[in-house]
């Protein structure tokens, strides 16, 4: 028994559970579809807008700030991904690793401070 298949087997179990979960959801939806009433009326399929007829389409522009936060998130998530392996093998890299990671984190923090100062983090 190779360790590779051990490794993969763990994910196979995860996959099975995911499959069971999806199947259950599908089953419930299917059963409900058969049992529940379906009386279609035009009014029912209107989108909800506080009780009045909807104005315009539902797809409106949203604020650009959301996008900026998404970019910042990518930055910090990638940072975390780089730190994860180092954190698990901290001792192996010793002081050298600490200095290197300190520089890395420091530069990213500078980026956060820069964004902060530029008013990116301010929600108006």
């Amino acid at each position, binding site marked *: *028994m190779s360790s590779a298949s051990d490794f993969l087997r763990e994910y196979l179990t995860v996959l099975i559970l995911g499959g069971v979960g999806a199947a259950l959801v599908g089953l419930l939806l299917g059963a409900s579809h058969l049992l529940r009433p379906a009386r279609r009326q035009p009014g029912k399929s209107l989108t909800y807008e506080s009780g009045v007829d909807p104005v315009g389409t539902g797809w409106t522009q949203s604020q650009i700030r959301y996008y900026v936060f998404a970019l910042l998130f990518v930055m910090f998530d990638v940072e975390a991904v780089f730190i994860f392996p180092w954190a698990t093998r901290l*001792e*192996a890299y010793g002081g050298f690793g600490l200095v290197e990671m300190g520089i890395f984190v420091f*530069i990213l923090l500078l980026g956060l*401070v820069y964004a902060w100062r530029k008013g990116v983090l301010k929600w108006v």
Partner: protein
Amino acid sequence: MFATLLQATGAGDKLVTPEVPWSHLAPQLILVVGATVGVIAAAALRGRLRRSVGAVGAAVVAGAAIVSIIPLWHRVSNPAQGPISAVNGAIGVDRFSLFVTALLCAAVILASFTAEAYLQREGLDGPEFSLLLLLAAAGGSVMAGANDLIVMFIGIEVLSLAVYVLAAMHARRISSQESGLKYFLLGGFASAFLLYGIALTYGATGTTSLLRVQSFLAERVLTDDGLLLGGLALMLVGFAFKVGAVPFHMWTPDVYQGAPSPVTGFMAAAVKTAAFAGMLRVFVVGFASYADLWRPVVGALAIASLVVGAVMSVVQTNVKRMLAYSSIAHAGFVLLGVDAASAEGTAASLFYLAAYTAMALGTFAVVTVVGGSGDGAHTLDAYRGLGRRRPGLALAMSLFLLAQAGTPVTIGFLAKLGVIRAAIDADQWALAIVAMLTAVISTFMYLRIVVAMYFAESESESDDRGELRIPWGVGVTIGVAVIATLVLGVVPGPLEHLSDDALPVLVAVDGR
């Protein structure tokens, strides 16, 4: 079942960490630290700095980097010590990388002075402009020194990302935004090509270290080298895009036209220099044993660039587009030197890049002034009658254009002579003849601008563009570029010595 997991995660043995000889990386470190400190200072003191502080600061940092190169150059030139390999063989410090770094720093100084005037005129914010120039130079410097393909990629990304932002820096101008976006999207494509090429090369040779690639290929003959050829081709595409060689030049006219004029100058000078430095190191040194295979392709790129650049530049009416196509033609000339795949070829390429740096930055400094408020007056009409309105400016522009055309007594002539000689030495007669013919065609285009400046009546003599201010920053850039173009054209000795010495080498890591 769990024993393997524990084994994989539990071991606490020390890893061998590479030595980082900080002093040998001084130029790069000065550039990067200067840029990051500058960015933070700019953010912290927002609005309380004079605009010129950014340009002067960037010039001081780049100057410090040049100063730090001098002792390194002496150290590396000393036969007893020789080139240095730093950070476990990732970065090499040899005269090639130092030469290119110095060239990039010089480009930063000149471009930031032009940019200072530009920012002032356009009312643009802050020192980020100059600081991004520093970051771009740092990336280019890493490319020039990279002894490992991954490090090369990091360098090219740092360089490119900074330049993407720079191209879109004039955010109020729609064409600048378009330029930035276009460059970003297509540049991302090119980076992907390069990275994929690196991946295939790794697959074929089992290493990304150029030194080990070199020795791997020198020691054995691959029976099935499809993977390696694919990798070579993709990397060539990536580099050809960055230098703007035909047929990967499509972005050049649009991006050059839309980007702020000082940035266009920097792109023409520094980005090209850095990309060619990477190309020379990877192909001429790393894949020397495959030269027979890549040389015809590079030669074809050179011919295509020369012909398309020269012919297309003639039919343009926008001066920035003309200069964009002329930069494609110049890339073709440098490719002649790469194609030679020899020491003379490399030296001639470096000399050409140095010459083009001076000429391009000077030219685009003039373009910055003539562009006027809003950076929009770049048609040939805007240059009509410049000889009467601003005789000095017109004279400088004529000098730069004639130098680019390859007129004797200027540095441009010697540069063209060098690469053509290298091509002839490498028995590439066809290339040399095409280069000489296209040089003649290009001359026609350069002369069109000169004629417009001196012999055409300005249709709009009376409008307010009659008085063009020449701010001190642009004055400095033009002055330095004129001196470099003329003096080095007459006395090329010192620069030739430097570029002859600056050959890329790969150094083994001591003891491993």
